[in-house]
């Protein structure tokens, strides 16, 4: 992996490219012994705050410093100073996996870690602690005009039948500009060759390509777009709650699921505090906070009800396709793979684009 490309890709990942934010929870002066804990994360403060507050209530002796960075900054920081953070949280799965694969993570040895589902962890070093589906957002106008869109198959049919009517009213990630969009493209192309039919149909419908979920959501909220394809579910839930004209659709043929990955760096300065935090993050209590106070999706096997992976499974059944935490993720970071996939994507996208104007 050549460095410049890595940075480029990571820069494109920015789901919510915000400036650096820091939260600080001082240790309770009465609780002994005081232990520092430094968390570097790419997780917005509204999502992170409830979790951190709950953790600090459990362990008031921890002096907690939380820095929210973009995925790019997070990666850069880590490689510059691998001994600066005690816990690293990020939604950029391939990059987190890349770091762990290279031996930058240390295993977490605790009962909680051992009980964590095998498919949601890697070597006891890397843990997936959220469960966020990739969804479609459909405007009620579209449903009224063309009927329900419940699956990728429906979408393909819709695009084939009404390409002209929908021209410019569909929005999705630009895999060239967005790291997340590129990751989804790779995963979807692995799932089925029909993905390429969908890409060329999207191309025929002159789909608008954007770089972030935020951009797509604002366009949808304003009514510029009638359908958004491949949005991160955790961000969509708020928007849908505030804008009743929008409907979130978890496709029932297949739905990718992305997960945020956490690990303790091998050179973590305070590994005991880090283990405490990880144990809390993976515990029933921590996961309940995620389920009840965030849209990230808790995935503790014992939890059920709204905001959990279990509830989502009940809703869409076998259609959920969590992105596997395995060496396959390394292919996402391959320079030539990216070029090859993007070349194909462009080719397919432009295959049936009618001449403009």
């Amino acid at each position, binding site marked *: *992996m050549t460095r410049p490309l890595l940075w480029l890709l990571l820069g494109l990942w920015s789901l919510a490219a915000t400036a650096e934010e820091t939260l600080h929870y001082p240790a309770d002066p009465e609780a002994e012994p005081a232990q520092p804990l430094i968390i570097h994360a790419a997780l917005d403060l509204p999502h992170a705050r409830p979790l951190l507050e709950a953790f600090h209530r459990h362990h008031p002796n921890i002096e907690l410093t939380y820095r929210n960075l973009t995925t790019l900054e997070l990666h850069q920081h880590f490689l510059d100073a691998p001994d600066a953070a005690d816990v690293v949280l990020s939604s950029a799965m391939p990059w987190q996996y*890349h770091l762990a*694969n*290279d*031996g930058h993570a240390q295993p977490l040895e605790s009962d909680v870690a051992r009980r964590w589902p095998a498919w949601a962890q*890697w*070597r006891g070093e890397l843990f997936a602690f959220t469960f966020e589906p990739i969804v479609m957002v459909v405007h009620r106008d579209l449903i009224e005009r063309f009927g329900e869109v419940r699956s990728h198959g429906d979408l393909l049919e819709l695009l084939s039948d009404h390409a002209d009517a929908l021209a410019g009213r569909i929005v999705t990630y630009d895999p060239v500009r967005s790291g997340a969009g590129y990751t989804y493209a*790779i995963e979807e192309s*692995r799932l089925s060759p029909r993905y390429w039919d969908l890409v060329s149909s999207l191309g025929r419908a002159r789909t608008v390509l954007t770089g972030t979920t935020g951009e797509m959501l604002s366009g949808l909220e304003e009514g510029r777009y009638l359908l958004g394809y491949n949005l991160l579910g955790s961000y969509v839930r708020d928007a849908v709650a505030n804008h009743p004209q929008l409907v979130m659709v978890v496709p029932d043929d297949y739905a990718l699921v992305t997960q945020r990955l956490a690990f303790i760096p091998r050179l973590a300065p305070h590994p005991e505090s880090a283990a405490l935090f990880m144990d809390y993050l993976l515990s029933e209590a921590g996961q309940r906070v995620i389920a009840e106070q965030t849209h990230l999706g808790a995935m503790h096997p014992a939890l059920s009800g709204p905001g959990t992976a279990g509830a989502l499974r009940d809703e869409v059944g076998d259609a959920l396709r969590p992105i*596997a935490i*395995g*060496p*396959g*993720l*390394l*292919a*996402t*970071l*391959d*320079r*030539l*793979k990216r070029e*090859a*996939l993007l070349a194909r994507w462009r080719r397919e996208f432009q295959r049936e684009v009618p001449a403009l104007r």
Partner: protein
Amino acid sequence: MKRGDSLYRRLLAWLLLPLLALGGLMVFQAWVDARHTADRAFDRLLEAASLAIAEQVQWQDDRLWLDLPPAALDMLATDAEERVFYSLVDRDGRFITGNAELPGDERGDSESGDTLLYRNVEWQGMTLRQGVRRSRLEDWRLRERFEIRVAHSREGRDALTHELLRANLAYILAMALVAVVVLLVAIRSALRPLTRLRRAIRARDPRTLAPLDLPLPRELAELRETLNELLARMRRVRANQERFIGDASHQLRTPLAGLSARAELALRHDDPARWRDALSAMQATSARTARLAMQLLSLTRLDNPEYRPELTPLDLNDLARQAVRDHWAGCHRQGIDLGVECASRPVRIQGIDWQLQEALNNLIDNACRYGGRRITLRTHARPPFLEVEDDGPGIPESRRLLVLRPFHRGEEGGEGSGLGLAIVDSIARAHGARLELTQGTDGQGLIVRLRFGEESP
């Protein structure tokens, strides 16, 4: 006896140590085998993954191009969640793509087709198993060379190695246990007859010399036979001793009874002349008895196996001449012709001066006593011997062995003690010499010859 020196221990050590060494070797071999098997099984993954990647290598835009199949990487990670590394390198060894710049392999290409090389490499503090595939593009014209390097950490291999080894270890341990138990039982049962023999010997009446009679294996039966032979010899020795004591007491009792009778007879008379006769007769008898006692003593001493006097160099000629000098006067009085024929050179042997003199005294005495008129002492240098010849009646051949036994006289009723030749025989044995009795030179008389061994330098 030292604590360590026991047959049981020796057998155990000599059987167990090689067995343990063999067991250790087997464990080591099992480990090597297990590792080899695990590597062979897992190397298939490297082979398949590198093939899957190699198939996707193309030539595009004047350079090597790879559409990396994610499944090829997933293939390299088993349940053990190995760390996975790969790289594509062009014919000049330049890194094209990959997640790690893995080292190359120095080894040469195989004869045909793709070259596949496996080995363990140390990479950034991790031990990896690396597979290198050298291949070339199968384009219409272009046959560009390239190299796929894939590697993964060894957890899966180690787990399989341990699993295989555990199965083998259980087998080896069970075998070792059985072998040890069998060994212990075998040694114990092999040594049991020895214990039986020891108990049988210990349980015996210390006075009995009866042969041992118990069934034993061949090796110990030989020991039993040897013991029985020893016991038989001891029985014979004891019988001899008992007879000797009986004879000796009988021999001593007769003159003592004679003395007592003579004294009693003399006391009945008042005549001093009679007393004198009786006293002189008693003196002669007591002198004979004293000599008998002397001879008994010397025979006992000679027959004592513990008695080993120092041998000194002697000249037989000197001995013979000295004996003639000592006896000449006595013989002359009895009208016996005593002579000596010496070898021309000194006859040197290792011997005990007084014993050989005693032997000569006895032989000359015997010759005088049994009617010899002419006695010749003769020495000979090669072979060294000493002989005494007389012209008396001799001893018939059938009785020559018998006369060597104590208290056996050549002629019943003679006045000798019957110990002379027995003493000579004992002396001969003490000198390692042979005692020979033969007929005299004229077909009569007797030659008693002490034939010594050749003198050792």
